[in-house]
């Protein structure tokens, strides 16, 4: 239990101590070696790297150097990542064996380890994080502390103004003041639909009931989206603080965090954070000496995508199958055990404290007319800089893919970007310059979703992509309502038929009819949005569908059943690499001959395509 004075003292002392984390000019003899412990880096041995650093430092009796475990830095493709502060040197793809050299060269001799410096897309080595084009256009609010603090140490969170916003709310503001600030900031739900957060709080506050709940939706299920996990892993207290503020506003005393069991690191750090907050009296009874009580419990999901839907999530917390409820009533009216319940997702909560501390005006000055602030995207797929990026709303897709993401690898062309996961749609080249916000994405047939952003190059077949998403929806449909249970299955069957080369033009019509009716008549968001990948690919890549059903060809050669792989004689240089890689000896030709593919033998595995350095096979 800490008094407010004690907390203030911790904040002041710690802040000085940690100044070198955020200020390269800090006058200090200390150095902090930050080792990323996000899931990506952890799985490439960052805990071993951390141990090695500590061991070597001890062996060499080096003082004034601390090794810190941090959350995700974002640039996962370069992991494991090590950053040395205050000079902000960025080492990429570090292995446990590199520790010795880093200590010797960087720490003892004061020189950069050149071979480990991170390379930017153009090949130039950068010595500091800020120089990387990946970070230049980013603005980190939700991810502010990720990669800066040790997520398992509450003092470090407090040092960077942690729990200051909660104190301000409890001591200086009424619930209505807080809600007003949130409303004026323009913050909208980051989980997908973009409902105004302030409005949601207001509605839940207005609902009558002596028992209310605050829930954090951390059941991040979109394949390819991992921003929520990174926040929980890198800055768990920011979520706890926001939940407490929300509880104060709506009049709740109990909170639940529903998090995927597949995120063991996030769960562990949340548990640590909750325990630390309880120890400090920040969760529990009479918080900060007021009569406000609040505590949080973690509930683990067990592998069902649909539980990201808020009413399914409630069902799951109550111990049942995650089958959505018909709305209305909305959770704000009747949620957990029928009581008014506020549900926000992780990223939404991660913005709250910043808004309270910096003001609604500050937040609403960022972004577009109707979408304020920043959005975190998990950038993945066929793009050079795979990782987590936080950009102001209104940043264009082109900026994200090319400036931040560093463009498409292997000299391929950009074909489309997919946002919103299985509920979203594909954005083609012609919309690369659309400023991204809730409305614009909807307008071009996609949606913000939780923030997965998958880039696809020209080797991707858009019909197959639609099929991929439908496979996902079919396997994740809860089975409660007819349109989603049977309808999505029928859509998938039609797509399979088309990809097998058995489709007809009537099948395209069937897809559209099913899509329209499933969209309108399903109970929950999962079913209502399940047809989106089909609708948007039909909208922008209809020609590809027509090629599949009329000419029976797949231009991306992904649909094996109808693919015929041939060598372009003009491009072929006769290097023979394709022949060497072909697993079934289906390629003929000797010496510098142009190669020919024996169609009878070819199993259309595509190995030759990827092995040809001249893109001569297609």
């Amino acid at each position, binding site marked *: 239990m800490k008094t407010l004075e004690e907390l203030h003292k911790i904040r002041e002392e710690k802040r000085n101590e940690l100044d070198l984390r955020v200020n390269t000019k800090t006058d200090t003899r200390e150095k902090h070696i930050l080792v990323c412990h*996000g*899931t*990506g880096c952890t*799985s*490439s041995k960052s805990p071993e790297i951390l141990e090695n650093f500590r061991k070597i430092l001890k062996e060499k009796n080096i003082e004034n150097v601390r090794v810190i475990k941090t959350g995700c830095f974002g*640039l*996962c*493709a*370069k*992991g494991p990542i090590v950053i040395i502060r205050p000079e902000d040197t960025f080492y990429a793809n570090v292995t446990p064996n590199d520790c010795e050299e880093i200590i010797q060269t960087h720490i003892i001799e004061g020189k950069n380890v050149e071979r480990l410096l991170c390379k930017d897309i153009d090949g130039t080595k950068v010595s500091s994080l800020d120089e990387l084009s990946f970070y230049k256009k980013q603005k980190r609010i939700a991810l502010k502390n990720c990669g800066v603090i040790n997520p398992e140490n509450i003092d470090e969170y407090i040092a960077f103004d942690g729990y200051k916003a909660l104190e301000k709310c409890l001591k200086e503001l009424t619930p209505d003041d807080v809600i007003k600030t949130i409303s004026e900031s323009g913050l909208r739900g980051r989980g997908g639909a973009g409902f105004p957060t302030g409005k949601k709080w207001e509605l839940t506050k207005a609902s009558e009931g002596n028992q209310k709940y605050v829930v954090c939706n951390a059941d991040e*299920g*979109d*394949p*390819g*989206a*991992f921003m929520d*996990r990174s926040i929980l892993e890198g800055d768990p207290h920011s979520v706890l603080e926001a939940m407490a503020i929300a509880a104060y506003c709506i009049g709740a005393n109990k909170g639940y965090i529903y998090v995927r*069991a*597949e*995120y063991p690191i996030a769960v562990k750090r949340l548990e640590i954070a909750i325990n630390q907050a309880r120890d400090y009296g920040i969760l529990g009874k009479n918080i900060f000496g007021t009569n406000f009580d609040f505590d949080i419990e973690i*509930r*683990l*999901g*067990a*592998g*069902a*995508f649909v539980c990201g839907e808020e009413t399914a999530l409630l069902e*799951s*917390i*109550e*111990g*049942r*199958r*995650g089958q959505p409820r018909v709305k209305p009533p909305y959770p704000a009216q009747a949620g957990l055990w029928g009581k008014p319940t506020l549900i926000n997702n992780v990223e939404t909560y991660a913005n709250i404290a910043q808004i309270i501390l910096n003001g609604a005006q500050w937040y609403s000055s960022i972004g577009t007319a109707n979408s304020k602030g920043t959005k975190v995207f*998990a950038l*993945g*797929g*066929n793009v050079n800089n*795979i*990782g987590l990026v936080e950009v102001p709303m209104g940043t264009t897709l082109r900026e994200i893919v090319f400036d931040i993401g560093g463009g498409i690898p292997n000299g391929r062309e950009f074909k489309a970007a*997919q946002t919103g*996961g299985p509920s979203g749609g594909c954005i083609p080249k012609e919309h690369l310059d659309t400023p991204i916000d809730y409305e614009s994405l909807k307008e071009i047939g996609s949606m913000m979703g939780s923030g*997965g952003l*998958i*880039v*696809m190059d020209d080797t*991707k077949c858009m019909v197959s992509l639609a099929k*991929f998403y439908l496979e*996902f929806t079919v396997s994740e449909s*809860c089975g409660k309502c007819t349109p989603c249970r049977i309808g999505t299955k029928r859509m998938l069957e039609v797509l399979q038929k088309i990809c097998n080369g058995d489709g007809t033009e009537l099948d395209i019509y069937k897809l559209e009819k099913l899509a329209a009716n499933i969209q309108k008549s399903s109970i929950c968001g999962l079913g209502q949005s399940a047809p989106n990948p089909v609708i948007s690919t039909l909208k922008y890549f209809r020609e590809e569908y027509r090629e599949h059903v009329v000419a029976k060809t797949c231009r991306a050669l992904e649909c094996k059943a109808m693919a015929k792989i041939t060598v372009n004689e003009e491009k072929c240089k006769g290097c023979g690499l394709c022949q060497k890689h072909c697993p079934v000896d289906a390629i003929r030709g000797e010496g510098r001959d142009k190669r020919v593919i024996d169609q009878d033998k070819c199993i259309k595995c595509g190995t030759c395509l990827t092995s040809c350095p001249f893109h001569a096979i297609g």
Partner: protein
Amino acid sequence: MCENKNCCCENNGKDAFLEELFSVYKPEKDNLIQMLNEIQEHYGYIPKNVQQELSEFLSIPLAEVYGVVTFYSRFSLEPQGKYKISVCLGTACYVKGSQKIMDRLTDRLKIGPGQTTKDGLFTIEETRCVGACGLAPVFTINNEVYGKATVQKLDQVLDELIQAENNN
């Protein structure tokens, strides 16, 4: 015979783990999924008699417990293999060709996703995004992540595991 040393299938009563579990949790219905998560973790699957114990403890009809177990993909009804190989079919991995890894795996082990080989060595699973998108495509074996996977790499890892098992 059951090979799983943690298995309770021959034990009709509650073992120490269940005794402990039933003392930690209150008999409230909303604890079902929490308890199932712990049971899955401990035994590697959800044995039938444990489902019945849970049903009695929480006063939830057994069919409903079973309905919950079969709803969530994390729970399995059968013991898992010694090596649980999960191939990520999240979008990032899919776009980078993880389906080929899965095809190769099912081809080699002659079982489908969600199944376990007869010798109890391997279980194949599909997973959605393990969050290592930077390393796509990714597969994991018992939670160890193998990134930037290729069919060759998979073959190599499998060969090593099978070799090691044969030597035992």
